[in-house]
């Protein structure tokens, strides 16, 4: 069985849809989950999710479990909060080394749509000491000792065979998971999620959360996108004149 770790992050839903509240699975991570759900139908894989987040992450974790995850490690401790990419990397790598040291592959969304730093995958591969593949557009197959991926980079596309263990940073995203089934969703709601504290993880406080961060967010502004519609009617000429007037405003 091929053991795959997926790093999950929950991000504000309103970044996708202004009318949506709460957190959703980062769309790049959702692509990974959906892809693995497809593979699970035909390939012997075990998918373990790992996520840093508070109680507000629960809904996204339920969906992740329902979609494909066989197990989830939920790093839920106030001491993990406000972590920059370095502290996040240290926390995730500590968890992977402790709980899934024999992972064949670690897959991350290329970046989270709230932070957009795109640094964690590279840092994580360094911490874990495994080969790093960036700009992954697709995963074609998982074999017994390697996987085949498609990388897209500056207009070129390469098909690459990667030997286990490796870390992938995936640049494709989804906002809707077609493999979600509500029977699985209901079972996932009843699942006992493993909540891991900083103490249980055994990570030094100076390595995680705000205390472990080299950078600190000073200010953040929510950009609210308004959805407005204007009805354009009348004859073709009237419609064209109206649109012209709107564009000139």
């Amino acid at each position: 069985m091929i053991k795959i770790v997926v790093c999950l992050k929950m991000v504000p839903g309103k970044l996708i849809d202004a009318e949506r509240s709460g957190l959703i699975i980062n769309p790049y991570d959702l692509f990974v989950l959906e892809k693995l759900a497809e593979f699970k139908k035909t390939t012997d894989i075990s998918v373990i999710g790992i996520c840093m987040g508070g109680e507000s992450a629960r809904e996204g974790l339920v969906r992740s479990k329902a979609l494909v995850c066989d197990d989830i490690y939920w790093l839920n401790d106030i001491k993990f909060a406000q972590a920059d990419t370095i502290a996040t990397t240290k926390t995730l790598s500590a968890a992977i080394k402790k709980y899934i040291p024999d992972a064949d592959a670690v897959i991350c969304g290329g970046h989270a749509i709230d932070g957009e730093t795109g640094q964690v995958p590279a840092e994580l591969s360094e911490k874990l000491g495994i080969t790093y593949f960036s700009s992954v557009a697709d995963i074609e197959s998982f074999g017994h000792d390697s996987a085949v991926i498609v990388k897209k980079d500056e207009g070129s596309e390469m098909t690459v065979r990667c030997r286990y263990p490796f870390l992938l940073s995936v640049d494709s995203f989804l906002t809707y998971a077609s493999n979600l089934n509500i029977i699985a969703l209901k079972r996932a709601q009843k699942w006992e999620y493993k909540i891991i504290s900083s103490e249980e993880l055994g990570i030094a406080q100076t390595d995680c959360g705000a205390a472990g961060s080299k950078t600190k967010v000073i200010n953040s502004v929510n950009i609210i996108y308004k959805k407005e519609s204007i009805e354009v009617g009348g004859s073709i000429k009237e419609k064209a004149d109206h649109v012209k007037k709107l564009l000139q405003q």
Partner: protein
Amino acid sequence: MSTNEEMQLIEAVREFAENNLNDPEYLEKFSPEMWEKIADFGLLGITVDEKYGGLGESYRTAAAVFENLGYSCKNNGFVFVVNNHIWVSQNLIYLYGSEQLKDKYLCDMTAGKRIGAICITEAESGSDALSMVTRAEKTDDGYILNGSKAFISNGPIADIFIVFARTGEGNNKSFTAFVVEKEFPGVKIGADIEKMGLGSCPTSEIVFDNCMIPKENVLGRYNFGSLIMTMALEWERCFEFVPHIGAMRRVMERCIEHVRSRQQFGRPIGDYQAVSHKIADMKVGIEMSRAMLDRIVDLKDNMKTAFIDTSIFKLYVSEAYIKTCRDAMQIFGGYGYTKEYDIERELRDALACSIYSGTNEMQKNTIYNFTTNGESL
């Protein structure tokens, strides 16, 4: 189920419907692919026990889910197919069938591998359902069924029919409900009937010509089909109409968007009471429907009968739904009359609901009889 968990289910259903069930090519044509998708999604067994592949949810949760399905899926005909399958076919086997029938059919039905339909109406017995002439004669091995049923929703695509047939001897007008498979010898399915609306719900005549039914396929008790029919109509009058509340919301929201942007005489048309009062009526219709539904699901979750409540509910929701769509057309004016804006399809789909599940006139008869017989209110 906690509110959060119910909201997660509802959110998942809405996303699913928005992304999978609104293909414009199939708004008036049944899509087997869409059926497969909804089956894979796991919605079909929502109140059926997990043992039979269902979700085992309460009727309250099911109602919330189906209202939102009606909201997010603008393919009213497809929602009608799903409802016919679940509430007046699968649900009847689940609640009133023998263990043998449940084991034989339910898993396939919750998985969507077999589609259900109910057969009550005949060419000469619509409102007067009890004057049906389709007859089942007892034999040593089972029953032989002869007759035909008309306007059967899901008819052309169904695999399992719940058929009501006369079984009483002499002047005994008793009838029995049977579970009839499409493959039983003597079952003939008519062509899809072209209708004014609900185009994606295939409808046809079903003919039974010396159709052999095994004895174990009696649903409920022999000669007690009236009980099954009463319960079937109760379920139909509730859950077939729940999605219409969602549809009313959808239509109302379209109207709100329109009345805010459409200007006449220098002002948004929503500023004029002739228009705004129509939207107020839509809102009242939605909230009153929900209030009635709340009472009904409470009764059903406590295994109580809700016959008169569902009759009132059906009458009210159907009238509110038709009025909502009719008013929407008026609000959209000339645009509403065009195919492009899709309001006319909503109205065409809505008009059927004053007819199916017992016409609104029959509901008024039922309500009057109940009210004047001194039953407790």
